[in-house]
């Protein structure tokens, strides 16, 4: 593989990315301006920024659902023009097929991820087990709570065998406790499998709790306002973390970045 421009340790390289949307009868709306950052192999990167700043838009470009106006996006050294291979997406909305059972919804991930037919049932069963969905295999999404639906959504994402997971406020619609628990489970899975993650959130505490590195975006048009490495040992415990000096330093720094005028 051609790796000239790219550090071999990078899963994704976003360079000088600009995105704007055409508006009828008005000049184009600039949503993302000259954004650059990288995601290492097996790295957990959180993207924090004010609501509506264009965080989600960047993920859509990374997954090939949207094309950028300027700059380059490389995934595993390949420029993204169409939907790249093994880049999985998870939305704030579960986006489960309402007419498919939990089993079938997760199987779709395995099927599209190229898992051989004979290996799918075992893979799906192990994911269902791991995500605490046992007993709900034949249930339909309408019978599940919001938290469980997001587990299924995560199961489908993992079944797809992604090397890069794009997560767009995946726990944003959940209640606080469920959100904490889901975050913990995500970390457990990530620590076992080490897939790269870009995790978009507007919850600073969540970002610090989960990520190796945090990229802070400004209000629209999104620019990289700051980048922080989270120097907190894992596993991270929420109650211990709250008294930690590094945690407080990061929280304050990111807070002031976000309230900074643009």
């Amino acid at each position, binding site marked *: 593989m051609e790796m000239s421009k790219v550090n071999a340790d990078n899963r994704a390289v976003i360079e000088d990315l600009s995105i704007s949307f055409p508006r009828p009868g008005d000049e184009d709306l600039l949503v993302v301006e000259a954004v650059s950052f990288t995601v290492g192999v097996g790295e957990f990167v959180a993207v924090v920024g004010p609501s509506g700043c264009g965080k989600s838009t960047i993920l859509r470009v990374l*997954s090939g659902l949207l094309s950028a106006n300027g700059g380059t996006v490389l995934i595993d050294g390949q420029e993204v023009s169409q939907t790249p291979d093994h880049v999985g997406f998870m939305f704030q909305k579960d986006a489960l097929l309402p007419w498919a059972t939990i089993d079938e919804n997760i199987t779709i991930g395995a099927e599209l991820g190229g898992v051989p037919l004979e290996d799918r049932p075992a893979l799906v069963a192990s994911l269902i087990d791991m995500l605490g969905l046992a007993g709900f295999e034949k249930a339909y999404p*309408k019978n599940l709570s919001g938290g469980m639906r997001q587990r299924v959504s995560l199961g489908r994402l993992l079944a797809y065998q992604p090397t890069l997971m*794009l997560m767009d406020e995946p726990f944003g619609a959940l209640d606080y406790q469920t959100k904490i628990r889901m975050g913990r489970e995500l970390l457990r899975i990530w620590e076992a499998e080490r897939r790269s993650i870009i995790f978009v959130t507007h919850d600073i505490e969540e970002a610090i709790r989960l990520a190796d590195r945090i990229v802070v975006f400004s209000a629209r048009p999104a620019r990289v306002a700051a980048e922080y490495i989270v120097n907190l040992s894992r596993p991270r415990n929420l109650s211990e973390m709250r008294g930690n000096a590094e945690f407080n330093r990061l929280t304050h720094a990111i807070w002031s970045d976000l309230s900074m005028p643009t």
Partner: protein
Amino acid sequence: MASVDKVTPMPPGRVRLGSIMPLSSVAARRLILFFALVAAWEFTAEFLVNEFWSSRPSEIVMRLFSMLVDGTLWRHTSITVLEAFAGLLLGAVVGTPLGIWLANAPKASETADPFIMGLYGLPRVALAPLFILWFGIGLLSKIMMSFTMVVFVFLLNSREGVRTVDPDLVDLMRSMRAKSLYRARKVLIPAIVPWILASFRLGIGLSLIGAVVGELVGSSRGLGWYIQNAGGMLDTTGVFTGLVVLMVIAMLANQMIALVEARVLRWR
């Protein structure tokens, strides 16, 4: 955390009289309504209105029985059901793909819209004389009549169904590199199945109208013909018997669709 359907248990140790045929059950209430209406009709014919005008249920039952015995019931019912069913099916087969196509071709849809709505608004029963001319007085003209009655229902419903597909589902599929055929199979078709079933529900009555109107204008068989023939002979019992049979067909067909819905739409 999970909210799986729960069954509320019956309080133990008590068997109420109503538990055999509870009044609260829909079937029981329907049966009561049916008998009340029949009784009111019979009473009216006995004491208030000459049965020449509105016949009476007992006469209709006797007519049904004699028609069943001499084979005329089957002779007329079978042909009308065939016409309506063929028209309904043809309408589904033509209308649904057209609707899907229009939903995916906004320009074409926009262009054709006023014309579609014009044809849809046209009282299509008025086409019957023309259809007799074009397709003869046989089966085909009636099938085409019932087809024109239902095709727009399928077209408009499936177009609307495709338009209301959750774009997030499509995006998610695309993010996992699902091919368009796969997306159609997993997202588009399941999403419009409820709309197609609803079209069948609406289409049952309309396809019967098409078949009967076709028969009224020119035919020698079918419930429409039977009703018109009876009317011509001032045989109100005959007219009402034909109407009752049509109503029963519509009700049975509706029940069948309801059964299909209960099986296919369990996820709702």
